[in-house]
């Protein structure tokens, strides 16, 4: 059991499955014995806007929102949204970025430049040594369903939390899997198990 609180910031684009991911995350916290709260900051996300979720675990959690500069973990579903969240993180934060690129209209036809992958990595390298970029879409695609990208990322996150020591022995993959399987249709349980495992392996291979 970890001894301090932990603030997760999830960032992505409407339709990427961030809401399910944050729902899983807050319930994993609860199942692991923490107080946990979650806040969706999504305005009109259905229309392709930026989506942010806050999840907090701790002995006692008051605010559902994380103040800027106080996020301990970033789970980003998309590179531009990752970079947009950079300055909301604590120096040294744990960062997991899905390397997907979704260009907004402002970049396609509005003349604003989408940051390239190298500059995104460089920016995070100045914040923290604990960063991991994985291609969740590719892993999910290999399993036959792009929709499980979010669960691939959760699998990777679970392994990174263990590696970083933010989560102790109490937080086993079984807790994650139990929470995930409660939230997906029965016919997709096996697929989601595989996705979670594949996400873990994707970062474990890099250890």
């Amino acid at each position, binding site marked *: 059991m970890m001894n301090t609180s932990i603030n997760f910031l999830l960032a992505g684009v409407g339709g990427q499955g961030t809401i399910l991911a944050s729902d899983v995350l807050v319930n994993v916290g*609860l199942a692991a014995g923490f107080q*946990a709260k979650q806040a969706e900051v999504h305005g009109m996300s*259905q229309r392709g*806007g930026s989506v942010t979720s806050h999840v907090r675990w701790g002995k006692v959690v008051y605010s*559902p929102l994380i103040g800027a500069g106080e996020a301990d973990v970033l789970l980003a579903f998309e590179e531009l949204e990752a970079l947009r969240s950079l300055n909301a993180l604590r120096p040294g934060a744990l960062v997991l970025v899905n390397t997907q690129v979704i260009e907004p209209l402002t970049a396609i036809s509005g003349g604003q430049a989408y940051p390239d992958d190298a500059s995104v990595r460089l920016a995070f390298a100045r914040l923290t040594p604990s960063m991991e970029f994985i291609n969740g879409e590719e892993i999910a695609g290999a399993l036959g369903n792009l929709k499980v990208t979010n669960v691939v990322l959760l699998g990777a996150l679970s392994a990174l939390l263990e590696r970083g020591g933010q989560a102790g022995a109490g937080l086993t993959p079984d807790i994650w899997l139990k929470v995930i399987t409660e939230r997906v249709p029965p016919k997709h349980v096996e697929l989601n198990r595989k996705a979670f495992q594949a996400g873990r392996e994707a970062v474990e291979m890099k250890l």
Partner: protein
Amino acid sequence: MIKMLSGNEAVARGMWEAGVVVASAYPGTPSTEILENYSLFPNVYAEWAPNEKVAVDVAIGAAYAGRRGMAVMKHVGLNVAADSFMYTSMTGMEAGLVIVTADDPAMHSSQNEQDNRTFAKFGRVPCLEPSDSQEAKDLVRAAFELSERFDTPVLLRLTTRICHSASAVELGERTAPAVEPKPFPRNPAKYVMVPGNAVKRHPVIEQRIRDIASFAEAFPYNRVEPGSRSLGILTCGVAYQYAREVFPDASILRLGMTWPLPEKMIREFAHSVERLIVIEELDPFIEEAVRLMGIPAEGKSIFPITGEFDPRVVRESAIQSGLLPASAHVPLPDLETGPLPSRPPVLCPGCPHRPTFYILNKLKVPVNGDIGCYTLALTPPLSAIHTCGCMGAGIGVAHGAAKAGSPEHHVAVIGDSTFYHTGIPALINVVYNHSPVTTVILDNRITGMTGHQDNPGTGRTLLGQETVRVELEPLVRALGIRNVRSVPGFDVKAIEKTLKEYVKLDEPSVLIVVEPCALLPDVRKRWMPLEVLADKCNGCTLCFRIGCPAILKSEELDEKTQRPKALIDAGMCTGCEVCAQICPRDAIPFRPVKVEAGA
């Protein structure tokens, strides 16, 4: 049993536990999920009303009939329902009546951030405010008990952060009060608000709000959490959570009832601390009332009057005013990212509203818009919404501009659900007082922006039952409008032809553009992406002007024009064929199977 629930889910659970008999609402962010969730409980009655005023009258009817009634809306919905809210305060009811207002500090999806606690004071109605999901559930029952004890409607005020945050909730039992089979009351002195009766009721409700203020002194959701004597914090709602986090040692008086206020409790609390501050989002509602009691208090001199709070806002404001030491500051990484492209919400790929705005942009007419997805056509490249204030405003504004002699032909654009909401009286006015306004009703067969709720045009109710479909064209014709045409939403030529004809008319006209929302399950089944024939595309960029997120710039440049060719993202394209229709070089082939318009 403990469950992680959003505030909206928790209110729905509270409604079920408290035995609400009739619940009525109009969808509106951040309140929509309350009735959606409530409707899933067994054997309940819940409905989408055409607007919030109707919803409140429906809930009042239930409460007059001796059954618990509830109406749910976003904050600006209470503006629409204000007339009903005010009269029911005068009459009281036979059973509990609770009205939920979901305010939107920071305007995540609203046109303003009005603080509806003022409505409670204005109407002599008590206001309850939860600080988390557990209280969101529990205060529903408390609100009904208060309502029945004092014969008053109760305003349950949520904010976006309460509605859309999840925290653990201990579920309770359903203990619905027994409903007595008594006839509808015949009590005109109480329920018929002619002046002679209303005059007698006014002192009654003034006494009632004083009685509730006494009750508030012992209301269990008003509570003192003792701490250091040096700082006392008066707070409510989600701001309580930020206060606890930022000032762990302070004494706190957390108000679960923010109108009327427990004066004695506040006075004693103020005496017990050296300095009293009020931490509340938006208006200095509590602060001003406390000062009127003659109690020195600070609030908006420290904390912002606009926007939403979070721990950082509260902490940094406190540091700036000297309430916290500079050492409490949490530095930001402040790393250079360069300018990042914004990601504003846009009309979806395959949105049936797109062609109408493409044509309106071409015609360069002033467009008086309304509230819905189509408001998003305000941004480039469509840039074809010029006013948008509130639900149902566009038609009236267009008429007024025309009557004032605005030299251009005005077009009002309104969605189907918004037309049923408050568009109909405005269109009656166009006919009755005669102006040559063209009204476009964008009928996408659903309430879109709030996430697909049924409405009077869909033929289905909130509980999933089949019902009468209120057809738009016969309705519009019945108002006496002679120029009415229904056109399929993806028929760009027909829309252009009709609008060109209508903007020349000297009498009212209505174009109904019919095409279901691209995100409806049945429509998704028909998605079929198109592609660009690169050898035919010459990079003319015309297809970029429809602002479709699925049309990208290819890396391949046209040899002659040196402009990027178009490229279609197969993962986003639905095959609506709008781009195919406007491409002058036939570089985007139509799908082999024709899209069934208006299906």
